[in-house]
């Protein structure tokens, strides 16, 4: 169990929630619990191969899980897991 912080860009696919307490003993499990609870967010988080999309960084506390044990980084109840996607403000793309 840990708190998952959901960025604005993904909230629309998570029932508008900015944060959720979710089950899981690793960062990856907590994120998977979000996808289970809100299936419409799944394709925004994962590639078809099931890999987390590369424009989303995962932080536990203030540390990128890349520097820890990746999605296997253990989390406890007091930890917050944060999704940090790339954002680019402004005009439409085309």
């Amino acid at each position: 169990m840990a708190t998952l912080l959901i960025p604005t860009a993904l909230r629309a696919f998570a029932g508008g929630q900015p944060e959720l307490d979710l089950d899981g003993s690793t960062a990856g499990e907590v994120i998977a619990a979000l996808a289970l609870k809100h299936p419409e967010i799944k394709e925004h988080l994962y590639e078809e191969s099931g890999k987390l999309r590369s424009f989303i960084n995962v932080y536990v506390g203030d540390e990128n899980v890349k520097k820890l044990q990746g999605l296997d980084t253990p989390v406890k109840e007091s930890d917050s897991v944060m999704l940090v996607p790339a954002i680019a403000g402004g005009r439409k793309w085309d």
Partner: protein
Amino acid sequence: MGLIDEGRLESLSHEEIARYSRHLLLPEIGLEGQKRIKASKVLIVGTGGLGAPLALYLAAAGVGTIGVVDFDFVEASNLQRQIIHGVRDIGRPKTASARDKIRSINPGVKVVEHNVALTSSNALQIISQYDVVADGTDNYQTRYLVNDACVLLGKPNVYGSIFQFEGQASVFYSKEGPCYRCLYPAPPPPGLVPSCAEGGVMGVLPGIVGTIQAGEVIKLISGESLKGTLVGRLLLFDQWRMKFRELKLDKDPDCPICGKNPTIHELIDYEQFCGLKPETQEILYETIEPLELKARLDAGETLQIIDIREPHEKAIAKFPGAKSMPLGQVKRRSSEFDPSIDTVFICKIGTRSVFAIRALRETGYDGKIFNLADGINGWARDVDKSLPRY
């Protein structure tokens, strides 16, 4: 060692000493720091929401040369946040409007207008003339372009980015820390995350983030070290919940441009890199122009018109006879579509609907699908002028 070479410093006039006295009183800036600010050349990429406060504060602070890059013209919908432009500037090039405002704040600043789109063919030439780049762009192609050009030229890139009511800021300086690619090796596929033009943005948000960028620029050019700057840190700001967070950023040894064995040695095709080239996208749908759709409806044809906008957007402008199905529900409700009838998807400007179409296609739907060009804004422009555009 500061960024600005001692040999470039000139003395300050009495007028300048009076004007910048509040900087001179700060031991962290002082006379030497203000001379460095005066000698410095800063390029602001984009004169929109982030570029506006950047340009205003850098002008007020006495940055000697300010370059502004933008190819766009001022529109009414810009004025909610792009405070460097006013009602009288509507229709003018943004760089011209920014130049006038900078000059009225501080005639001592030399303004260089780059009234062009920054591209792989001009970016190195433009950026090489400056000491620091402040990235106020609004799209992934230009962000990766600015990042890569700054890494290749060894320039610090003061980064800011916004979405709805959330912002990010950092200083990417690959000589001393990570670059944008260390954090985000690749952009999201087009359509996966809505842009601000579709998702909206709180007007003061770019004001806050752009002002943070301006502060970082001034620290970089006036100071002797990078201490205290956002090099190696990512600042996150949530305006709605009024929270700042700070995350650690590390250089990625495998970064394709600033890592140990870089594979990128020159600027690339950023449209293609960001998946915006038509040949890299599957054919999922055909585009229908608003007038063409009107003609088909007038002819009495039966069409499934699906409006994928959120309920609060429909309160602004309704599409007559459209079935409402917010983007997030399309997959779940795919059985409501009849593949024997042509379907037309509608959103605000015709980009978010592509994502809805992709979601429907992924369920195996093989009926004919059209995407309304420019969305309901296009419809309001060409067909029903009684509707507002937003």
